[in-house]
Structures are given as C-alpha cells and as structure tokens.
C-alpha cells in the first residue's frame, strides 16, 4: 500500500474519531453538565478543531502525499510491541524481577543477540540490580512474586 493511501486512511480515521467524540458530548450522561455555563463548550470546541485539522490532513493526503511505498518492517514492530505487552501482563502477575528477566531475554534474542546464556545472565543481573536500586535505595515498591 502506498503512503498516500495509508495517510488517507489515517486522516479519515481521525476525522471519524473526532466526530464520534464530538457526538459523545451530547450523551445523556453529560446532560447534568450542560446546566453549568461553558462546561461542555470547551470540549466541543476542541473536538470541532480536531475534526477541522484532521480534514486538513485528509485534504493534504489526497493532494500532496507522495505516492510511494515507505519501507517499515511492521512485523518486527508488532512483535516488539507484543513482547512489551507480555511484560506488562506478567509484571503484576509474577513480579518485576521474573517478568523483566523473561522480557529482556525474549526481546534480546528476537533483536538478534546470539549468546543465549550471556543474555539470560545479563537479564537476571540487570533485573535484580534495577529492583535493588528501586526498592532499597529509592524506596519505590515494585510488585514481587506472591504479592
């Protein structure tokens, strides 16, 4: 898909999102807020500006965006994002040290680190080190296994 096509989709999605948010300000849950002077005026004004600027992007995408294929390895980005998501999921489940060690190892191997043993050792040492600095020196509590 060309960049122009993708930017058009992006801009159109932003217009729709802005319109949805604007319509949302008329929802029943905000009926009581309408009694106050200007309470909804500001959000509505913002969403109108949102739609206007997104329409500007859409117009520019249709007229000026280059019709080229911009190379991005989306699969690598999606896998890296998934690794972070797994880390966040495990973070509260098994605690920081284990989650961080697993994430570090998986991510480093995915990014091309060769020596598995060295990566695992570094992952565990780094996670323990950071955990010590935060919990003992900075007194910031991090989730631990069994919390």
């Amino acid at each position, binding site marked *: 898909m060309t960049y122009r096509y*993708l*930017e058009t989709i*992006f801009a159109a999605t932003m217009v729709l999102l802005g319109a949805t*948010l604007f319509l*949302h300000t008329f929802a029943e849950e*905000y009926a*009581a*807020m309408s009694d*106050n*002077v*200007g*309470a909804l*005026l*500001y*959000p509505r004004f*913002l*969403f109108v*500006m*949102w739609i206007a*600027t*997104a329409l*500007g*992007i859409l117009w*520019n995408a249709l007229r000026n965006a280059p019709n080229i294929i*911009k*190379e*991005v*390895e*989306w699969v*690598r*980005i999606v896998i*890296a*994002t998934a690794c*972070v*998501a797994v*880390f*966040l999921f495990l*973070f509260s489940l098994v605690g*920081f040290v284990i989650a*961080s060690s697993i*994430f*570090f190892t998986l*991510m*480093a191997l995915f*990014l*091309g*680190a060769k020596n598995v043993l060295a*990566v695992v050792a*570094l*992952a565990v040492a*780094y*996670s323990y080190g*950071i955990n010590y*600095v*935060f919990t003992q020196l*900075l*007194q*910031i*509590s*991090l989730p631990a296994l069994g919390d």
Partner: protein
Amino acid sequence: MDAFLQALLQTFDPTVLFCVFIGTALGGVMGALPGLGAVVGITICLPFTFTMEPISAIALLLGVYAGSVYGGSISSILINTPGTPASAATALEGFVMAKKNEAGLAIGWATTASVFGGLFSCMVLLFCAPQLARFALRFGPLEMTALILMGLSCISTVSADNICKGLFAGIVGLSISLIGMDPISGMTRFTFGSFALTAGVDLISVIVGIFAVAEMLSRVDEMSRQAAVNVVQCDGMRIPRLKDWKGRGWGLLKSSIIGSIVGILPGAGSATAAFISYGEARRSSPRRANFGNGEPDGIIAAESSNNAVTGGALVPSLALGLPGDPVTAIMLATLVLHGVVPGVRLMQESPVIVYSSFLTLALATCLLLPLGWALTKAFTWLLRIPEALLICMILILCVLGAYGVRSSNTDLWIMLLAGIVGVIFRYFSVPAAPLVIGLVLGAQFERVVLQSAILVDGNWWVIFEHPIALFLLAASALMWFGPAVLWIYRKLRTQKPALIS
C-alpha cells in the same frame, strides 16, 4: 538576593552535585549514541527522580539535557552520524576534520564552543527570566488564555512540515487532558466507564510512551536496515590554543546569541538554532571559503548555538510555565510531581528552585569539558554495546517510569498505547511534541478559558481593553492563518500574469 544565596547553598549540596555529575555523564552518553538523545535520556531518568528532592530531580534532568545536547557532537565528528538532530550541522565540518586526522581538535572546538554557548545562555536565563516573570505577574485569565494559545500555536506550526499535523497533535494533547474530572461540575467525563481513568491520564505515562517507547519500537525497525559504523581513529580531545581563537570570538558570541533567542521561542529547538548559526557563519565568516573542508568556524557556530538553546528554552518554562519543547515539558511535569506548580507565579512562590535550576545548568555546562575528554576516550567502547541490549534496558526503565508515579497497572497500558500512537505519528510525520505540551498545559488552559468566558460574560469586545492579550491572539492568528493567506496571495500573483497574457 536571599533566595539566590539559598539556591547557591542548596546547589552545592553533595547530593545535588552528584545528581548534576551523573546526569551530565549519562546525558553525554545518551547524546553520543545515535538515535537516543535528550528526550529519551530524560525520560529514562524520570523514575529515579520520584523520591528525590525537587532541586536534586531538576539537577539530574538538567544535567542530562546539557550533556545530551553536547554528546551528539561526538558521534557527529567520529562516525558522521549525529547523535541528536541538533548536531547534524556539526557533522558537516567535524567529520571532514576527523578524516584529516584532526578528530581530537574538532572535538576540542565543539567542547569549548558548547561550554561558552551553554554558559552564555545561563546568563541570559539569569537576567531575562526574572524580568519576564515580573512582567507576567500582570497577566489575568484573558492574557493567560492568549499566552497558552500562542505557545501552543507556535510549537504546533513550527514543529511540523504540515501545519495541520502540528495543530492536530496539539489538539489531541488538549483533548487527552479532558479525561477525568470536569473542573466545574466535578463529574467524570470521557472515562468510558473506566474507574482507573477517573483521576485522569497520567502525564508521565504518556510522555514515556510517546517519546521513549515509540523511539525504541522505531529503533527495532531501523536496526534491521542499519549498516555497520566506521569510527574514525581519535587519541583524545585536543583543546584549541588561545591564538587559534583569534578572529573567531565574534562568531562564537553571535551564534550563542542566536541559540539563546531561538531557545526562547517555543518549538524552534536546538537543531533549528544550529542550522541558522551554521548558515550565518558560512555567510559571514572570514574563512567562509574553507566551509565544507573542515572549517572550525562551522563547528563553533553549530555547537555554541545548540548548547545556548538549553538556557533559552528554560526562560519561558520557568518564567511563564510555558514549555517550548518536550524536554522542558518533562521538567515542568517533574515539578508538578514534586508538588511545585509551574506557571507565572513559580518565580515568586519558589524562587529557590528557579535559581537552583539556573545554577545547576551552569554547573552541568562546566562539566562538559571533562566529560568531552572522557567521552572521546570511551566512545569506541560505547559503540560496541549491542543495540539489542540497550533497547531492552531502556524499555524496562520506561516501564518503571510509568509505574513509579501512581503504582498503577493502567498507567503501564496507557504508556504502551502512547508508544503505539507515537510510532504511528512518526510514520505519518505528525510531531509528538505539541501533543505532550498540549497535555501539560491542557488543564491550565481549560481553567483560564472558562475563567475568561465568565469574565467577559458574552461581551468579547472586552478583549480590546487588554492589549497584551490582543497582541498575543493576533500573533496566534498570524501563525494559524498566515500560511493560508500567503498561499492565496502567491496563487493570485501567479494567476495575474497569465490573465494579462
């Protein structure tokens, strides 16, 4: 004067000195590593500041700021890859000098110019910020509305090639700040049933996500296409002799002035300053014929200017509470975390913090000299750290940065979401800086807009009784509609000759 002396005493506290030292060293390393830079450096330092005193926290962040702006010059000179966009102009002359076996001398020119530029901007900060803050005390809700609008308009229009993209990002930032409690009715809004969002979206999570996480995810893509780097041999930094400076002093001063002025303007940034100064030096230097062949005047112009931006950028941030770039936005957010309210009254209410910021920035700038010496020696070793491991380490610190503020899992997911949005924004060249600044100023902007609405009570002609507000609104209108008017004017001019013929 009492506040200044108190700030002086607090700045020379061993903890603060240690924070400046660590911050500057870490900033130098982050700046020297291509692709990282000031914003990522400051973002990963955020979790360490949560339990610090405000002055120590600001000292650490200012150290990272000064160090990273300078650090970019090392990689520009040694591998022709600017560590930060601000050092791109340095590479034009620095790398040519490095290829002539003068890498040490090129780093010496860059370091001394950086120190001068940085210290010059600290003087500007020291003299301008209090005056501006005193003037800003006269600002009422109308003036504040106009001021924030102008700041946002400026950064939105300057930071993007397409004005709509910059403005869109700013509006998204303002819209995100709507989530949570309504300031008038106290009712929740735009939470879509989520209890966790009742307290609003945490600013730090969004900053960490949109800058650091997005940067790391983008690096994952870019590292697959990157070629191996060739480092030019360098034995160490060589400071230029005093006689070599002959005839270069005016250029140094001029670039420092340009950097300080550009720094004060919201959104312009250090890369802009460096290129303006480089262009000016190329035009006016007595050695302009040598530009492109490794002319030190080019390095002096770029480096003194981009380091002078650091102090300049703090002027509107500390005097008006108006961040001009992501770095100062993060600093103001850090002050909020420590219970200090940024804004026009910051200088009056917390003068010690403000003066300490001036002093720590000056201290960090002075540290650039030994840092340059150490970094030049360590640079080859630094580049050997595999990028894969760096990305993992930084992402783990990002998670802790987002978690440490409220210990909330929701904040972690917001961080990841902001990271994904950041990657998409980068792909479509939508700048992230206006979004973050919109988010930082959002609550304050809404408050002053509503206060203004109550004040004018439907009679908007009142604005003509407030010349400052009127001037600022006119400036904003010029930024919004100026390009469109110019476009129509050009269109009409090109059509006229066609009609005549």
